């Protein structure tokens, strides 16, 4: 096997960073991100395409956790996403939390939109609660009986003012926001083409872009008290 020189190795390594994004030749051409458009199948399903997941202690209440997922790969133009949600009533959006280290969800928070008109959707929330099934299958949590899940509902925000609901410890939001991801994707492409380094300062290719987001905040204690081995991930599911 031919030995590569350092420059070749760098280029190869950066090529790897890019290649995973499937080059994302969508209507806006070149977007990628932490997970935006990360496989051929999901790239064709904008409403179910997870872009990023965030988890952090609430800045406003140290006893609360905040979970956020962003959806859709190319909310590139501000005209997209205003007045018209990209959430799909046929998609179940879930946060999953493992509290004992086996990478199997012990709690889920489910979210699904209802409403025919994409300008007047409601995002419905269930949980956190133990799911009936785990893994790659999913079922809507029970809303009755002794295991009934907490419920919430909020109108999907399609404009600049966030519509927020807060009830019995749970605060929820769903709607359009600025894409929180930042990355000099343009210079990244230039490096792939032979440039020797990034620029300082770089240029954020995600500046000016929007995404759809689901954000929840609730007491950390709901996830199992003093566990120090909590893990979170998000999924989208369809029938």
């Amino acid at each position, binding site marked *: 096997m031919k030995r590569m020189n350092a420059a070749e190795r760098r280029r190869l390594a950066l090529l790897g960073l890019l290649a995973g994004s499937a080059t994302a030749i969508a209507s806006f051409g070149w977007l990628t991100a932490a997970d935006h458009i990360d496989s051929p199948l999901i790239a064709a399903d904008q409403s179910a395409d997870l872009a990023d997941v965030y988890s952090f202690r609430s800045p406003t209440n140290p006893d609360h956790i905040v979970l956020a997922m962003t959806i859709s790969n190319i909310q590139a133009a501000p005209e997209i996403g205003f007045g018209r949600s990209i959430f799909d009533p046929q998609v179940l959006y879930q946060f999953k939390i493992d509290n004992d280290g086996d990478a199997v969800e012990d709690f889920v928070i489910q979210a699904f939109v209802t409403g025919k008109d994409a300008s007047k959707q409601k995002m419905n929330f269930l949980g956190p609660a133990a799911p009936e099934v785990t893994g790659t*299958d999913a079922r809507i949590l029970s809303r009755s009986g002794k295991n009934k899940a907490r419920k919430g509902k909020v109108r999907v925000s399609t404009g600049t003012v966030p519509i927020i609901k807060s009830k019995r410890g749970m605060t929820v939001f769903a709607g359009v926001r600025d894409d929180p991801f930042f990355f000099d994707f343009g210079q990244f492409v230039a490096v792939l083409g032979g440039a020797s380094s990034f620029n300082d300062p770089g240029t954020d290719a995600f500046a000016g872009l929007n995404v759809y987001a689901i954000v929840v905040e609730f007491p950390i204690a709901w996830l199992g008290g003093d566990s120090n081995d909590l893990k979170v991930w998000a999924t989208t599911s369809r029938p």
Partner: protein
Amino acid sequence: MRTLHFYLWTVTLLVTAALTVAACDEDRSELLEPDGAQVQLSKTPLESMTLTQQDRFGIPAINTLFVSAASDKNAFNRAAPENDASDFTAIAVATIMGRFAVSEANATALAGLVLPDVQPLGDLSGALFAGRRLSDDVVDLVLGVLFGPTGLSDAAPAPGLASDFVDGNDKPFLAEFPYLATPHTP
């Protein structure tokens, strides 16, 4: 292996440093529903159906960086984290070695740290609280692991490649829920 710890634990340290949390209870009374009112969820066509996973996300960029073939990417998005170590370690090790000029030993260690693909929250009861904040620079974390002073790539150190020199978002994050910045207007 310091760089690997850096990758997973820098966030923890950043959060700890940033925990100058003013424990103020926000008065959002204008946003609250009438207390005690029953929330009636709307009927969903998904009720009683068995649903199939389409996409998933835990640690940023795992599928993007460490799984190469398109068919593997599709499979990864539709897989459960509990099976990641058994089903994707070999794929990830091969990809990391091939793409990033990383030794097999380091590639194996790195794969072990990012699989299963779940975001660690850390100790929620104590002062440490990892996870991923909106402001965390995950691109630089990944580039640093590969090209930083003790980077895993044979090409390291490469200071001009160890950061994209974009250190934050274009709009300020909010101090209050929902924290994500206001969207860009048409």
